[in-house]
């Protein structure tokens, strides 16, 4: 039978690559679905501190982010090196901290009313900022009654 060809079967037949696109597409769809595009470009440098007792944040759609850190190199010409607060795409100095109230109110307007109590504010602050500016931010959050907060941290490796 053809299973036992004489002579001709010496060379190995080429592996069919017809299913390669299928495999690649599968991977492609996986990454397309899991990709989260960055909504904001950071104009300040944020390197969060490390902690061990961290919890994962749930319901990402209900989280508003407040970034605190010193301006990146390209921004230092305009804003200097003092720590600034970034909300969406705009940075504010410490004196303009009351902009947070507008920001939180705008965030609330974009959500359903019944979701508002579950909204969390994530404070992503650089490890080198001082507590002064962080406390100002927290006071503003208290003023608008956005009390659920999360200090964004990296999980440090030591399990201890």
């Amino acid at each position, binding site marked *: 039978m053809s299973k036992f060809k004489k002579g001709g079967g010496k060379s190995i037949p080429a592996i069919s690559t017809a299913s390669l696109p299928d495999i690649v597409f599968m991977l492609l769809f996986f990454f*397309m679905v899991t990709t989260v595009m960055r909504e904001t470009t950071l104009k300040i440098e944020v390197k969060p501190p490390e902690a061990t007792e961290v919890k994962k944040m749930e319901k990402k759609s209900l989280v508003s982010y407040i970034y605190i850190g010193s301006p990146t190199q390209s921004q230092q010409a305009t804003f200097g090196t003092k720590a600034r607060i970034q909300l969406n795409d705009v940075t504010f100095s410490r004196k303009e901290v009351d902009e947070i109230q507008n920001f939180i109110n705008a965030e609330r307007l974009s959500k359903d009313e019944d979701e508002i109590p579950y909204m969390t504010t994530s404070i992503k602050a650089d*490890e080198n900022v001082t507590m002064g500016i962080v406390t100002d931010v927290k006071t503003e959050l208290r003023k608008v009654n956005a009390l659920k907060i999360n*200090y964004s941290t990296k999980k440090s490796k030591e399990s201890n």
Partner: protein
Amino acid sequence: MASKRRGLPEINAGSMADIAFLLLIFFLVTTTMDVDSGISRKLPPMPEENIETPEIHKRNIFVVLINKNNKVLAGIGSPTNNIELDGNGIISESLKEDVKAFVSNNGTKDNSSESPEKAVVSLQNQEGTSYSMYIQVQNELTKAYNELRNEKANNDYGRDFDKLDLDEQKIIKKYYPMKVSEAETKAN
């Protein structure tokens, strides 16, 4: 032969893999897999005017003060003990142990808390305190409470706190409520 060629020739799909690869690589590069994680806290609501703050007995307050030089002082009633830092600026275990001893005192010692429910940790920081030190202290406080809850879970249910169901977790959280009060930042 000639009549067969009339129909549309099949499109060569050999380059489809290349196109798919290109897209795949794009998404691979742009994907950020990081999960947001952090320490959750609840801020106190803005104090209403003319409302007197309830008096808390000194023995039920554990004060942790981080001053502008990032020195950590802690103690029951007032920040008296110096918490040492090692060469890398990591605070020693003693803070966590002190908090645990304070919260789980249950009235055995006269100069420590009456019950876990009454125990309050007051965290104070100053204008110049660094954020990383603040987070480190918050982390230690969380760790102290997590360990206490875990011990209680193992005692009562024989399982780790994470493994309990929500109702059981609630009971333990009620027994060890995490009360961290943060006073306003002190000037200078």
